[in-house]
């Protein structure tokens, strides 16, 4: 098995951090964009780029509440996203065991 077996959507430093951070939330919870940014330390533009890729793959959902300056965006991992992280973790372990 090679590193190619790892899900390329997760196997990038920023997206791995995003998915791992959101997976630490209990199922059914969401995290605000700003808190996620604080926890990971990415710039807003960088974070948006990676969130969009993950959302396109249905690994996470986002919800915007409020309008104008008071608006707030929250993101949450979907069941598909959690399953993808589980598979990624298992594949990573198998790869490391084989090294």
């Amino acid at each position, binding site marked *: 098995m090679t590193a190619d077996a790892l899900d390329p959507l997760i196997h990038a430093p920023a997206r791995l951090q995003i998915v791992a*951070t959101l997976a630490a939330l209990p199922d059914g919870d969401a995290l605000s964009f700003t808190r*996620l940014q604080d926890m990971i330390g990415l710039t807003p533009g960088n974070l948006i780029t990676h969130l969009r890729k993950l959302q396109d793959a249905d690994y996470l959902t986002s919800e915007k509440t409020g309008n104008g300056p008071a608006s707030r965006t929250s993101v949450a991992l979907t069941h598909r996203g959690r399953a993808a992280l589980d598979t990624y*973790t298992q594949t990573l372990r198998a790869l490391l065991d084989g090294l």
Partner: protein
Amino acid sequence: MNRTYDTGTTETYEDEGGLDPREAARLLERTRREAERGLDFRSPWLTLLAAAVALVAFGAVWLSVRGQHPYKGPTPAGLVVLYALVLIRIASVVFAHRRATAGVTGRSVRRRNAEGAALAAALIAVYVVMAALVNAGASDSVVYGVYVGTATLIVLGTFWAARSAVREDWLQLGLSIAIVLVAAGSAFAGPRGVWLSNGVGLCIVLLAYSAAQAWKLRAPGSDA
């Protein structure tokens, strides 16, 4: 599904650089642990503060009642120290909790609110029963000593034990059961000794829990 990211920035940055599997495993583990720590308000330091609060608060009440013959109950000065320290404890937990859960929304927030309502009802019931005991003519040593010194802790401990069991949080379950046992055992120390027994017992239990928390946080691959 609509995209809702709107921060007014146009900056974009790609991060597709290859990750070595070992590097990826380290990053995954580090991120997971940092996220769990950041989202959890509990910490060994907060527990150490709780241990000190328990010892000093119950100790102050014990000092205020140890020379009473017959037993009348905690003096106003003893109660002021007790409630001031309890308020400090509550404020420290609220501060840590708000900081840890900032930006978190969803099911767990609704569940916590419901749990708070249930706990408030249980604590109110403890004091309603206390009033009923006074009304029934129970002695000061029972009402203001053995009962109030143990019932509150037993209710709090039992509630937290049930909550921890549902979440499969075994360390918290152990702590909760230990608190219930300390409170129940302290009832045998009598109306004066119950305060000292509760204070020392809780302090020891909380110190042990703090050490366990610190050990879990340092242990590689821990889920603390």
